[in-house]
């Protein structure tokens, strides 16, 4: 009897589970957030305590100040980089997908071009960026090409793997149904490649931003990369830090978009 009464007064097991679950979720967000805030506070205190000059390491408050006072400048430089990153992301990935399809379609094409793709991938992007700026000039084209190039290889490799990831049994099913090559492609190969494609796209979401910024370092008047160079040479550390945060914000935004698209598309 006592036990039964106890059970009624105490919240049910489900409720306890729910509370625990909420706590767990809050901890999942709260712990890293708290850590980050703690580190920022530590940075603020350290810089002020040891009297570090602002041009060497600005305090978080200085960076926040630069963010507010230089916001129009930051935004003016944000848009070109966003455009270059997105355009490079699109061009590089579409090229990689199409070439992957060609590779899977014909071993001959793969044998001819895969070594070239590997070779291009081995050239450091920092080394090839000046060459591309020389070829395409100081406009945005060079930056788009650099961003595209940096996206290209991971997507190519993943997409080829994805298109080949159809199980042998599924291919036997296709044969028993007398499916044509294009039916196998559209109904089996392409859908089964999507999880592979999205893991590559998540990589390129952030690397395309790196590509655009590296391109802007080599030569540009506008863009977050140009602003980084500019504020470094002017010892404007608060603006430099604000620009760096802006760049990583752009990467996070691109990554979040791809993740969202993946959730919508890959439901299995």
């Amino acid at each position, binding site marked *: 009897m006592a036990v039964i009464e106890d059970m009624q007064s105490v919240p049910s097991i489900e409720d306890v589970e729910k509370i625990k679950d909420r706590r767990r979720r809050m901890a999942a967000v709260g712990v890293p957030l708290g850590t980050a805030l703690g580190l920022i506070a530590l940075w603020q205190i350290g810089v002020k305590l040891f009297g570090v000059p602002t041009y060497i390491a600005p305090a978080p408050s200085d960076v926040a100040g630069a963010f507010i006072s230089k916001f129009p400048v930051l935004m003016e430089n944000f848009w070109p980089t966003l455009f270059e990153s997105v355009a490079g992301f699109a061009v590089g990935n579409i090229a990689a997908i199409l070439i992957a399809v060609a590779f899977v379609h014909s071993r001959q094409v793969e044998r001819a071009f895969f070594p070239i793709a590997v070779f291009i991938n081995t050239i450091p992007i920092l080394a090839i960026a000046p060459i591309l700026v020389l070829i395409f000039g100081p406009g945005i084209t060079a930056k788009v090409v650099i961003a595209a190039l940096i996206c290209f290889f991971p997507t190519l490799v993943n997409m080829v793997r994805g298109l080949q990831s159809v*199980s042998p049994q*599924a291919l036997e099913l296709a044969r*028993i149904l007398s499916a044509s090559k294009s039916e196998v492609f559209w109904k089996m190969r392409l*859908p089964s490649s999507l999880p592979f494609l999205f893991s590559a796209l998540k990589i390129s979401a952030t690397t395309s931003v790196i590509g655009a910024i590296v391109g802007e370092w080599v030569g540009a008047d506008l863009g977050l990369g140009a602003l980084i160079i500019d504020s470094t040479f002017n010892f404007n550390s608060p603006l430099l830090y604000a620009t760096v945060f802006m760049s990583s914000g752009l990467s996070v935004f691109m990554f979040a978009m791809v993740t969202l698209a993946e959730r919508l598309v*890959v*439901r299995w």
Partner: protein
Amino acid sequence: MMAAENIQGAPVQSAPRDLAASLQAASVRFGTFTAIEELTLDIECGSFYTILGPSGCGKSTMLRLVSDLIPAASGDVTIFGKTTEQARLAREFAFVFQDATLLPWRSALKNVELPLEIGRNRGIDIPVGSRSPRELLELVGLKGREDALPHELSGGMRQRVAIARALVCQPKLLLMDEPFGALDEMTRDRLNLQLLDIWRETGTTILFVTHSIAEAVFLGQKVIMLKSHPGRLREVVDIDLPEPRTIAQRDTPEFNRYSAYLRNLLETC
């Protein structure tokens, strides 16, 4: 409709029947290795055949030969009097694999519809069964789960989707390679009974590979025993148990006699 199919599918032992499949001294080689040697076998229309044999004796290879997945090195295989390729193009047969082989991004219903989509845009005349994909899912007991993705279904449910998919073009010959091999005993029993119902209703011919002697006796009107090294026909055993089969029959002396006979036969293969 059901009555007509019942008559067609009802076992008639005496009358001579058309052949669903016929193998004449068919051999299969992988390089220098002979997987099947001079296999001669007639598969009668409308019967339920189970195939037993030691592991690696060529049971899967035999089904793959019949379904035109691999060619015969020599000999001849015909299905309803046609070559295996012609029969494949006409969708005369369907195949159920050991794992369901569903496309994971398609719902149960969409998976069942797959055979109807393949070839449609090429103007190929796809035989459409009398039952719609929805009705087939109902037939295999999956009403209400049409929109579930394969990963949301249990192994037994996935296998039932695969069976519904195999039935959608109303095949006259159904090839099944250990379709219930990965399932637990209870699920397997239930699916066995369902399969027998489907067989009686549709009147299709079934070739069913299994490792289980009990399953072979329970399902089969005839058990094809193969022997290994190389794969050859050992014996075709008629199972004369009363129809329709029931789970209770498994405890009868006749059933056990068949089981014991097949077990002895298997040991000498």
